[in-house]
């Protein structure tokens, strides 16, 4: 169980939407992932194609619908997007995402902090997307963010966890859930995040753009589960010399 603010989630995997080749594949992938949380962006509605439904077949009432503030470059824009999302009737959680660099899509730390502060004051349950900056992650936590979502690597890159040391520091100091967000590519990346002690992962491209998104969704579900089990089980320490697995005594010599 993962508790974020007042929400209790049975799955530690959050899944982005869109980027799938078809609504049918998306539906099957979402189901295979067994996620509780789907993320969305807020955009202008097309008045010409109002009937179009990109989420056909998905029973959205079964999920926590987590809006993000993607598209915002300032705190002001992020706060407005979050408020629009709230009035549209999703959950009262929001993923704060304020991008400060178009090449890396890394967040603007100053605007991210400001947006988080304002949304907390406004009563939102705030999950903040951040880089793997250890100090910023601590400051977001001190501000009262309900979860901190450090990037493993740039959004959509599939590079996996490029700085496990920073991530480990972020996790060790954490008093709120840490959800590793962005950049994960393979099930081993997801398992590694969980082994490092993360409370969950958020995936989008890794599943949606896989050759077989439905199978990848299941693989990610199992990887998150395996990584969490392994983290809780406590791995052996690493050392530079071997320790035999078989008994050293009683070896029968050739005569």
């Amino acid at each position, binding site marked *: 169980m993962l508790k974020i603010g007042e929400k209790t989630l049975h799955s530690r995997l959050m899944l*982005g*939407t*869109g*980027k*799938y080749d078809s609504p049918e594949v*998306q539906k099957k992938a979402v189901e295979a992932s067994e996620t509780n949380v789907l*993320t*969305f*962006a*807020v*955009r*202008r*509605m097309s*008045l010409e194609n*109002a*009937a179009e439904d*990109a989420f056909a077949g998905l029973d959205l009432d079964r999920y926590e*619908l987590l*809006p*993000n503030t*993607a598209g915002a470059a300032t705190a002001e824009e992020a706060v*407005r997007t979050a*408020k*629009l*999302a*709230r*009035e*549209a*009737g*999703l959950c009262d959680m929001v993923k704060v995402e304020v991008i400060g660099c178009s090449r890396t899509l890394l967040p603007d730390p100053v605007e991210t902090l400001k947006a988080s502060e304002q949304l907390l004051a406004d009563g939102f349950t705030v999950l903040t997307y951040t880089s793997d900056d250890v100090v910023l992650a601590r400051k977001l936590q001190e501000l009262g963010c309900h979860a901190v979502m450090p990037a493993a690597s740039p*959004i*959509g890159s599939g590079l996996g966890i490029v700085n496990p040391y920073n991530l480990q520091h972020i996790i060790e100091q954490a008093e709120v859930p840490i959800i590793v967000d*962005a950049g994960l590519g393979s099930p081993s990346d997801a398992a590694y995040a969980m082994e490092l002690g993360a409370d969950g992962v*958020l*995936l*989008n*491209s890794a599943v949606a753009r896989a050759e077989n998104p439905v199978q990848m969704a299941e693989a990610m579900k199992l990887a998150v589960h395996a990584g969490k089990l392994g983290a809780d089980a406590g791995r052996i320490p690493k050392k530079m010399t071997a320790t035999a697995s078989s008994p050293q005594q009683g070896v029968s010599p050739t005569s």
Partner: protein
Amino acid sequence: MTLLINGKEEQLEQTSTVSALLAHYGVDGGRIAVEHNGNILKKEEWEETAVQDGDKLEIVHFVGGG
């Protein structure tokens, strides 16, 4: 009258309220939000919010995102 909806000029016959406007476009159901002249409206305010010539509206919904 002329309204600026989602950044685009729209010519309409007289429309009374935000509710009526949304019904006109067939977008009055589902998970959407409306900003009227810079104010984000609660759903219960749609009925009572009058629309006048020159008003600016933003109508948003949810799309795929991560």
